[in-house]
């Protein structure tokens, strides 16, 4: 499907080029009226806000890309690349995956986690202007003090933003479905636990991506799990993240 879409785009582009060529050969170059200089690149500023009390967000995998790439599909089994991020907070494989897909336009390259209750750095992303007619935004980042929870955006269409325009997305929380939500300290990474990150074993009963049901924790003596290493402070409600994108050029 992806290959087909790319191919038909190329065919259409080739047709337009042919028509243009024929046109310009039979007339003198048009005199353009004075106007604003057309930029060769589109420039965006992007930041990630962590809306939780005590869940660090792993270094975010954030991409501007053309359509055809998806980091995950709701209700489908997670890719290993997503599993690596959702269980261990490591975005490396997702970066490789989107790069290999041939759709990547620009990547957010801040290697630091976004701490709880904080706004991460504003990063500039630039894409060629000839790609401006098809721009998608994907973001994936792990809620570190969980087994396999993540928040983000799944190939949201941000085509056609005007210079100066901002969009703010409140992001929900997914469960990758790749690791049982044991809430054991040994199974959760991050500063509070330092437990295991990625493990290729898929031990969750339903190996499909869906929204997260929230953490049980040991905070409640009645409805909690005394064996959970998570406490009251680790609980969260949606949205857990906020992504702001502004077109600056």
């Amino acid at each position, binding site marked *: 499907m992806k290959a087909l879409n790319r191919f038909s785009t190329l065919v259409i582009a080739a047709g337009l080029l042919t028509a243009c060529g024929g046109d310009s050969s039979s007339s003198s170059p048009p005199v353009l009226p004075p106007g604003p200089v057309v930029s060769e690149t589109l420039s965006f500023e992007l930041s990630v806000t962590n*809306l939780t009390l005590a869940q660090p967000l792993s270094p975010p995998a954030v991409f501007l890309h053309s359509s055809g790439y998806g980091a995950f599909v709701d209700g489908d089994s997670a890719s290993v690349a997503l599993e690596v991020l959702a269980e261990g907070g490591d975005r490396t494989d997702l970066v490789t995956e989107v790069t290999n897909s041939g759709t990547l336009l620009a990547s957010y390259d801040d290697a630091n986690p976004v701490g709880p*209750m*904080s*706004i991460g750095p504003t990063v500039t992303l630039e894409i060629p202007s000839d790609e401006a007619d098809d721009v998608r935004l994907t973001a994936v980042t792990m809620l570190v003090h969980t087994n396999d929870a993540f928040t983000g955006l799944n190939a949201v269409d941000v085509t056609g933003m005007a210079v100066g325009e901002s969009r703010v997305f409140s992001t929900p929380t997914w469960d990758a479905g790749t690791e049982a939500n044991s809430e054991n300290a040994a199974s959760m990474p991050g500063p509070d636990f330092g437990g295991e990150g990625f493990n290729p074993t898929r031990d969750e009963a339903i190996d499909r991506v869906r929204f997260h049901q929230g953490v049980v924790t040991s905070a409640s003596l009645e409805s909690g799990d005394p064996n959970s290493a998570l406490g*009251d402070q680790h609980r969260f*409600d*949606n949205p*857990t993240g906020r992504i702001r994108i502004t077109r600056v050029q």
Partner: protein
Amino acid sequence: MKNKIITAALASILLGSGGAAMAQEVTVRITNLTQGMSFTPRLLVAHSEQIDLFEAGTPATRPLAWVAEGGVIVDDQNPASAGSNFQYFLETPERADENAWRAFGLGAPPLPPATTSADYTFDTEDFPYLSLVTMLIPTNDAFAGLDAWRIPTEPGTYTVNLNAYDAGTEANDEISALRTDVVEAGTGDALGGYAVPGMAGSGNPNATDVGVGGTGVGIQVSGGTLEDAAEGNVHIHRNVLGDTDPTGGVSDLDSRVHRWLNPVARLTVIVPGV
């Protein structure tokens, strides 16, 4: 209030001389979507980009803490707030020309759970953004917030969902302010309200099933006292914990009554036709 009158006078002068300043009256109502939380008076602000009532991921301002910990917007609600509440913040000379504000529900009972307010008529004075804050009671420092929503210019009826935030200025002890067996550590002050632990609004007329005897959630009672601790920055509220023990347990809230999930409120804004 004096500033508001001056602003209104200026606006009519400009209109009379064919100036561009315009009044834009919108109709606003708010629905409380929770099962067990009531809303304190609602602060509605139409404003320019120069004004921000709150920003998730950054520390709460003192005016926001007054709303989130005590539901206080104006001096009349609590004279101790004079000089540090939103009335002061929004009317200081450098900000007065950047916003138009109203506090709805002052002097009236809080907006009960699962209830829609009366219609408010609100003059946005053509400012582009709308923000709203209102405290959820009984809680320590939870508020429902709308952060700089762009007011549509097309006539129509618009709805926007509001999430519950935690101001981050007071630990969520979930201890009732009606308790007399617990006081603030150090000062011995009674619980509840701005800059003291305990949940303001524990005795509000809609508050049902608020218990006693809880030992504390985000911070624990120690020797009959509670520290005035804080979490840090504004963030999405993790929800109250509660329990089912009205005379003990960890929380004085009832987990069957007081918990919520976002969104907690819906704002309806009617932009009239010309």
